[in-house]
């Protein structure tokens, strides 16, 4: 039987359009060959909270990852180093590492994957001299995308760890 039926549907409101025109790009984008304005220099040159807004390296607070991976890519090692130095210079400073994933895979599994990424950044900061007591990790999995398209360009922006200073 040829079964054409009437399907009554709610109108597709253009919520999507609004959602994506408003997408918050996380800046700055990874810039592998970026020359830091302030080269982390010996002892005398300690970071201060003001540097979080001005230092080219410290201003970079997003680490991006490959699909289903949690290794820190080489281009982010410099960011690990300057934030670790900040933690060393400012023993009262606290950061929260927020792990995120792209939309592929299930929500609960992605919570695990986001946490792995957060832990990877935590380890990198600690091996660069940051203290574990200054770092906490939280995973949002795929619950907080910065981009909602279904393509690799968008997914690569969502696979990230955001470094959030909760005490400077």
């Amino acid at each position, binding site marked *: *039987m*040829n*079964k*054409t*039926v*009437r*399907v*009554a*549907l*709610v*109108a*597709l*409101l253009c*919520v*999507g359009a*609004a*959602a*994506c025109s*408003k997408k*918050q790009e996380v800046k700055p984008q990874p810039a592998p060959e970026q020359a830091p304005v302030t080269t982390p220099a010996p002892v005398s040159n300690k970071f201060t909270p003001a540097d979080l807004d001005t230092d080219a390296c410290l201003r970079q607070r997003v680490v991006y990852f490959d699909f*289903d991976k949690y290794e820190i890519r080489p281009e982010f090692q410099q960011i690990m180093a300057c934030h670790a130095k900040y933690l060393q210079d400012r023993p009262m400073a606290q950061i929260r590492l927020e792990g995120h994933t792209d*939309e*592929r*895979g*299930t*929500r*609960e*599994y992605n*919570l*695990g*994957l986001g*946490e*792995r990424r957060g*832990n990877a950044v935590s380890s990198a900061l600690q091996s660069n001299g940051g203290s574990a007591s200054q770092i*906490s*990790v*939280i*995973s*949002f999995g795929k*619950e*907080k995308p910065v981009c*909602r*398209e*279904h393509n690799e360009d968008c997914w690569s922006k969502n696979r990230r760890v955001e470094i959030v200073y909760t005490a400077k």
Partner: protein
Amino acid sequence: MKKPSRYLILLLGLLGLLFAGMASAQSQALTGTVEGVTKSATPIVVVPFAQAGGAPLATDIADVMRNDFNRSGKFRSLAKSEIVENPSKGADINFATWRLLKQDYITVGRISDAGGGMLKVEYELWDVNRQQSLLAQAYTAPAGDLRSVAHQIADAIYEKITGVRGAFWTRISYITAVGTGNNTTYSLIVADSDGYNPQVVARSREALLSPAWSPDGSKIAYVSFESGNSAIYVQDITTGSRQLVSARAKGINGAPSFSPDGSKLALALSYEGNPEIYVMDLGSRQQTRLTNNLGIDTEPRWTPDGQSIIWTSDRSGRPQLYQMPATGGAADRITFQGQFNANASISYDGKQIAMVQGNGNVYRIAIMDRSLGGQVRFISPGPIDETPSFAPNASMLLYAASEGRRGVLYAVSADGLVRQRLVLADGDVREPAWGPYRQR
């Protein structure tokens, strides 16, 4: 700022679903074709129920039943417009008419005033070819409960003809997300199996996920980020009272699942380093760790006998499904086809396991029949499908899909041939969970 709609009504439809009265500027009726054809579907006619006096009723019982039958995939009901005669009693049925229209079964019924604000709903089911009465029952209910009555009649007919208990008179839960970015409001909703009568169970400005029904249908366990980190709550859906079950400051508190006897909750927690499966006794709150390895272990589900847990683990690389005794022990991998297998939903008899299977960038809902080895059949097209949930009789499943930037739900027959789309008027809908049978 847009205020979230008060009536988060899931409007949907198959054949003959009428809601001209509900249509607002935000909705419109579209025309479409059901994906696939079910040649084996049984033809049934549901004649509009006669009403003896009184004001017109808001619920068209026959319409609710037709919609139930159609989305099950097991039946195709004759469109209201093709119903040429309107008998309301078996004695009035002109069988030749319905044989000519190639109908196998006919349902007739009538509604009368039972006094005290109650209505009496009587129906009969007849076999058209044998001209034989198969069922004749009556219900007494207030007018506001007529949708429930319609679903219960549809269940009785479904069971009489197929031999399988009907699951139309059940509830579903799901999460909605309305708004964008930091202005998103998340709601945990419980509704009838066809999306009607939605009620808000919980609301949050932060993500809600993973609702799981208690076996008696009285409670829902879920994950909320409302306090910053993930935490697991168990909420009574009638009284609204809720208990915080797990809120470890460190790590994930996720993936709750009630044991079949309702006494325990399986969870995924990562406070000891990485996500592992735990079982919590809800009475004593005593917790037992079941897994211990460096992979991600999450999404535990109990087998119906309560003896085993099936869960997702990436201990071998990518996520796959594993099974172990519910008291812990050796992990047996049970999925081998597909790069990614996760988020199991187990049928009531334990014979079928639905899961999300990912291959490349395509994630679809697959069902593995355990009596047929590891072979799976796909029941959804992808590419970003997730969260399968079996109906309590395993005749249908719910799952979530992405359409553009919007999340929608589908109710699909277990053979994957009949599909019904459920969308929210404004916003995302996701994380469906089909509730248990209801008790009268």
